[in-house]
């Protein structure tokens, strides 16, 4: 007995209910709350993944950045962000509901606090993606400044365009759970930041060839990826914003499983072929690439298409990581390739395999829908990524001139843990700090 039909009936009986108090859909509220909690946990995943991929001397700094960017993101999103993103209709941004005052959730039946919670977790995720790309060299204060701006203003604006009833929503741009809004946005911000910051000492040789600067704990990195995958079920399946259509939730869930699975496999195989050995970090990145890739199309494509999308994402991320090195940008954790490149890929994939009957605006290219959907998806990606890149470039250069973005060379050698926080991440262990 599906809630879906109930909802239908609800709308009939609704008016009666509405006048006194808004009628809440307890089941959908529970689901979105749980989804939000799962997405929250992704923060833990990001922090251990990124910590594991840096050297011991910078692990604490990365953990600190992950904790504080999330904290300030939720605060910034509470005060400004939500109002800009969902406060009111408008082509470019909303203007009501600062501090969540005097507004209701756009989703019928959901208390606004739960809807906000789910959205705030997304803002936190977008901000935290960057921590990895700027790891081991970015000043803590400057990082705080950046992350507040991103989650309080930049992310909400882009979010408004796509999800808040903005101009891209109007054009039928389809990004179900945020391949572009969250991941490509985070990825491109990481790219701009890493590029403005410059590479870590010793990352590139005089001739521009890259050196590997290894992380310090694969178990942490691997645990981080599993936690992220775990939370991603909330991220994608929760974007249904309710339990009204159990079959959609189910489809999203299976796609969110198949894409990362095959992504891990194809990334591993690619690494095997290119580098002789199956690489753990690339396989882990491949799983994340599959997750990022399926985030936009998760509801609008069939499991079969999800396999294609994930498989290609896995390959893309391996080449993407190599390409980022080739253009001499230093991204210690591969955030740009995984979130940026695969985020774009996932968004475009909606234009290839999306199906109208499954909720896409129109059938994708391979579904016989022609180039229409693909065109709109491309436009949307260019708009969001372009705007973010320019806006963040301004933000970073501004911060740089005021606070300075980068720590001193000595601090970089000694490690940010000691110099910026006066802490040691691993007391008692004998460690080669400059290995």
């Amino acid at each position, binding site marked *: 007995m599906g809630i879906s039909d109930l909802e239908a009936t609800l709308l009939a009986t609704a008016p009666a209910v509405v006048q006194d108090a808004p009628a809440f859909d307890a089941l959908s509220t529970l689901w979105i709350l749980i989804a939000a909690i799962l997405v929250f946990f992704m923060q833990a995943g990001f922090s251990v993944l990124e910590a594991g991929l840096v050297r011991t001397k910078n692990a604490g700094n990365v953990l600190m950045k992950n904790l504080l960017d999330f904290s300030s993101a939720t605060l910034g999103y509470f005060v400004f962000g939500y109002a800009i993103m969902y406060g009111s209709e408008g082509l470019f941004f909303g203007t009501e509901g600062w501090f969540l005052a005097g507004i209701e959730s756009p989703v019928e039946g959901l208390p606004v606090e739960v809807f906000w919670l789910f959205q705030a977790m997304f803002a936190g995720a977008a901000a935290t993606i960057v921590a990895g790309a700027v790891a081991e060299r970015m000043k803590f204060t400057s990082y705080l400044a950046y992350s507040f701006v991103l989650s309080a203003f930049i992310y909400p604006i882009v979010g408004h365009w796509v999800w808040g009833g903005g101009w891209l929503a109007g054009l039928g741009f389809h990004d179900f759970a945020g391949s572009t809004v969250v991941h490509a946005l985070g990825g491109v911000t990481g790219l701009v930041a890493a590029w403005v910051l410059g590479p870590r000492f010793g990352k590139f040789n005089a001739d521009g060839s*890259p*050196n*590997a*600067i*290894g992380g310090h704990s694969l178990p942490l990195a691997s645990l981080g990826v599993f936690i992220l995958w775990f939370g991603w079920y909330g991220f994608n399946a929760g974007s249904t914003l309710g339990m009204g259509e159990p079959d959609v939730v189910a489809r999203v869930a299976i796609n969110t499983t198949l894409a990362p699975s095959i992504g891990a496999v194809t990334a591993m195989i690619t*690494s095997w072929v*290119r*580098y*002789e*050995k199956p*690489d753990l*970090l*690339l396989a882990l*990145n491949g799983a994340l690439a599959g997750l990022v890739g399926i985030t936009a199309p998760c509801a609008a494509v069939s499991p079969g298409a999800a396999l294609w999308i994930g498989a290609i994402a896995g390959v893309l991320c*391996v080449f993407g*990581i*190599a390409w980022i*090195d080739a253009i001499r940008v230093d991204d210690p954790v*591969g955030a740009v390739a995984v979130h940026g490149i695969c985020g774009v890929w996932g968004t475009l994939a909606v234009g290839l395999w999306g199906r109208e009957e499954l909720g896409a605006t129109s059938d994708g290219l391979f579904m016989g829908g022609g180039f229409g959907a693909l065109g709109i998806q491309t436009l949307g990606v260019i708009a969001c990524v372009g705007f973010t890149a320019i806006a963040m470039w301004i933000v970073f250069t501004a911060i740089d001139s005021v606070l300075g973005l980068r720590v001193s060379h000595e601090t970089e050698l000694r490690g940010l843990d000691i110099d910026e926080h006066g802490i040691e991440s691993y007391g008692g262990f004998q460690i*080669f700090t400059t*290995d």
Partner: protein
Amino acid sequence: MKMIIAVIKPEQLPAVKQALFDAEIRHMTATSVLGTAPRTEQHMYRGVKKEVSLLKRVRLEVAVNDANLERAIEAISRGCMESGGAGKIFVTELHDVVTVWTGERGSRALY
């Protein structure tokens, strides 16, 4: 008395330890160190070549009497040869030895 310092590869430790035991040399001190190598190894890290110029090595310290010096060196060499052949041995003068518990000094402290 001499202090023998042998730097070997980690995977050589079992063989070398065994060889020393067989030569009835039972006391030693092991430290995990990083050592340079004639040819640098290459690891892959996320697809990027990693020039490892300092490789994991084990540094063994064995204090012996002059009488046992050659026996010890042979034992260590044998152990190294059985396990790949790498390894470098350094010998320094040992001026004195003390076993705290007994207060014994000099070569007697080595037994």
